[in-house]
């Protein structure tokens, strides 16, 4: 049986950037290896300047590795054909302001070899998917930040790629827009599309990713399955609904009687500020 090629294979990637003549080159990425299998959603997290974007650019052939190799579905990243099945959304994308949303998608579609009725159909589908049907004839110059991200995501998906690379997909987007982008990532995941993203919003990464890598000062410090990384092995969580104070007291007493177990914390679980914000704005919207 032949082995399925990884969607993303980065092996011992090192990337140095020249600074001035005398100074040592700046090492942006230092021996990073990442393997993402088809259908996985991988989140690369790390502080600003830790090498996330450079890693993505090396994977797309936009920068050449100083050493190491990158490949997409088994094809060398430095070769043009490796980009046949990739969609990329850069951080803070600016598209051609003179084009409308629809024209933008058509332009990228034609670059990928899609033509005629197929192209029109695909553009329509994507505009619907990213909820920009109403703004399809408006010039991109007049788009909001969230709309730009969504049209950016649509252009990334134009040729139905098997891998989507998203660099800070929710940067600068309001919580509602951010949630919409998160939902779109969920849809991609359902369709079996591999997603490789990097983000500062750790909560969102936690929500959508099943594999995570933590990069710091160019080095991969930790990576693996999200559940394995964040579970605290020696603790157990019980969440009760409509529990009476007597029942809670009884459980606590039971724990106290056990010599090895210890109650670390009890109380009411909290929602996130994001969920609160979304719930309240939705209520306001529906009450109009």
């Amino acid at each position, binding site marked *: 049986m032949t082995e399925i090629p990884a969607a993303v294979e980065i092996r011992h990637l090192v990337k140095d950037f020249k600074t001035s003549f005398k100074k040592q080159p700046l090492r942006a990425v230092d021996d990073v290896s990442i393997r993402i299998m088809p259908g996985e959603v991988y989140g690369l997290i790390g502080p600003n300047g830790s090498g996330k974007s450079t890693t993505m650019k090396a994977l*797309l052939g*936009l920068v050449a590795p100083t050493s190491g190799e990158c490949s997409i579905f088994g094809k060398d990243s430095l070769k043009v054909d490796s*980009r*046949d099945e990739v969609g*990329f*959304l850069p951080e803070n994308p*600016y*598209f*051609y302001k003179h084009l409308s949303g629809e024209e933008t998608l058509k332009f990228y579609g*034609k670059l990928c070899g899609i033509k005629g009725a197929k192209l029109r159909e695909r553009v329509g589908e994507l505009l619907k998917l990213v909820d920009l049907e109403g703004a399809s004839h408006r010039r991109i110059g007049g788009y909001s930040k969230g709309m730009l991200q969504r049209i950016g995501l649509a252009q990334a998906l134009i040729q139905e790629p098997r891998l989507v690379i998203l660099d800070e997909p929710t940067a600068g987007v309001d919580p509602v827009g951010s949630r919409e982008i998160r939902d779109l990532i969920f849809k991609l995941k359902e369709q079996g599309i591999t997603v490789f993203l990097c983000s500062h919003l750790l909560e969102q990464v936690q929500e959508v990713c099943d594999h995570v890598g933590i990069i710091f000062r160019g080095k991969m410090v930790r990576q693996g399955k999200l559940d394995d990384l964040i579970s605290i092995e020696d603790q157990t969580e019980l969440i009760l609904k409509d529990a009476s104070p007597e029942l809670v007291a009884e459980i606590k007493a039971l724990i106290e009687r056990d010599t090895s177990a210890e109650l670390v914390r009890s109380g009411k679980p909290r929602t996130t500020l994001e969920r609160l914000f979304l719930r309240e704005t939705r209520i306001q919207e529906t009450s109009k």
Partner: protein
Amino acid sequence: MNPVSIIQSIPSHVSRIGVIALHAFTQLVRMKVFYFLAFFAVILIASNFFNLPQHEGPEAAGVNILRSIKSWSLGAMTLFSVVLSIVATALLLPKDVEDRTLYTILAKPVPRIDYLAGKLLGVLLLVFISLLIMNLLMTGILQIRTNLLVTDQVAMAESRGWPAEDIALLKNDILAQGPTFSLQGAVFSVFLRATIIASMALLISTFSSSTLFTTIIAFLIYFIGHFQADARAAYFADQAGTSDGWISKLITLLIALVLPDFQLFNVIDAVIEGQVMPLFILGKLTLIGLFYVVFYILASWFVFAEKEF
């Protein structure tokens, strides 16, 4: 999901270059560059009223107007085509890098040579269409003025009792100053020169990081190109006794390779004077234009292929 289901065919270099070229053309058109055609129309109309210094007899008075129309029109065509070629080319590449739109294009299966060739072709398409419109306007006005002049001058000659052969000669002299094939050749030469300049600006913009730098250097090379042949000749005339022949030839070749000799395009001035442009000159200019375009595109590719973003 099968990508083959949506991508009908792997796009050829030609179709991808076409898509990028049409896009670059649309981008420039939507920047409202065609507004300059209104200025051209004003220059063309004004050229009807300019009086050039006159040394010939009264029968040549009208011919001067024809020369004036050609001179001002071809001058304006040169100016607009050179400015458009340099500024538009210098603008497109750094703008894509700055706006990060280049990332999204190169992240698609687009070879870098296709991107460069597409951008250049877009600019050239704009220059070509601009020149075509300007040429139509010039030829139209020139045709009308020539017809009027022929009628006037023939009537004047007949009233003075000139022999038929002299009238025919006068008519031919006037027609030679009107819209001729040589004039079309001169306009095509203006386009060829713009082509060389645009591809040179493309090369500069691949290693420069700003539009301003590219524009300044491109204009500088354009001006140097007008006297580099004289400078070369003068320098090597001085050195003739001292240096080896082959070194001189090699240096001359290298200078000519990098810096085009724009004096070759002075044939346009001869056409304004009413002279005929031989076909072989036009062929030679076309070959020179093609050589520089191919040379500059390959050099641009060489730089751009290694460029990191």
